[in-house]
């Protein structure tokens, strides 16, 4: 059974703190993604990675960085959290290559509140 797990379901941090969000998948997927979901804006891509140590900016990378040291793990880092980073963060993974739309599998999300 496909599984994507995220380290925390709920997180409360203070402005200026460094925040780590962890994502692990057990499907041997090459591609991993970080999104944030905000009301009225849908899911917006922050960063993605198509291989270990590889990363690409998504649509809204400002204020974030990522790390992919192992194939199964993709971390999102908020270097200095700000209140406008309060959001639901979703991790996803998918296979690379082949034909057709390999659907992305999502984790349960982390609700981050920055005060």
């Amino acid at each position: 059974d496909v599984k994507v797990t995220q380290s925390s379901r709920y997180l409360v941090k203070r402005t200026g703190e460094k925040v780590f969000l962890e994502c692990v998948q057990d499907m041997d997927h090459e591609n991993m993604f970080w999104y944030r979901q905000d009301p009225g804006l849908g899911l917006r891509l922050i960063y993605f990675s198509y291989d270990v140590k590889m990363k690409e900016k998504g649509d809204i990378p400002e204020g974030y960085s990522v790390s992919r040291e192992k194939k199964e793990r993709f971390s999102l880092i908020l270097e200095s959290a700000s209140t406008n980073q309060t959001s639901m963060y979703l991790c996803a993974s998918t296979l690379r290559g082949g034909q057709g739309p390999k659907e992305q599998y999502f984790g349960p999300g982390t609700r981050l509140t920055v005060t």
Partner: protein
Amino acid sequence: DQQVKQNSPSLSVQEGRISILNCDYTNSMFDYFLWYKKYPAEGPTFLISISSIKDKNEDGRFTVFLNKSAKHLSLHIVPSQPGDSAVYFCAAMTSGSARQLTFGSGTQLTVLP
């Protein structure tokens, strides 16, 4: 500029009737389209997809229609059930990419018993 748009933030339907969720896109390079369903406090789950070479794809109660000339797709749910109440996201992809998806803003479907 949003490349994938869902102009209806919410939709209410009576149980047993048809639900129609709409999605428009602007990028003609998109060649796959997907629908995801999301319950509160859970991640989105894949529902159904369609290739741009088709105009219809059906899976049980769910059918997706694609009108490529109008850059419009719709998801039909027949018959609607209370358990279908969720946020539905339309997403689009260009093949050959790292399988990045561009999502719409979502439509909250409420199926009334």
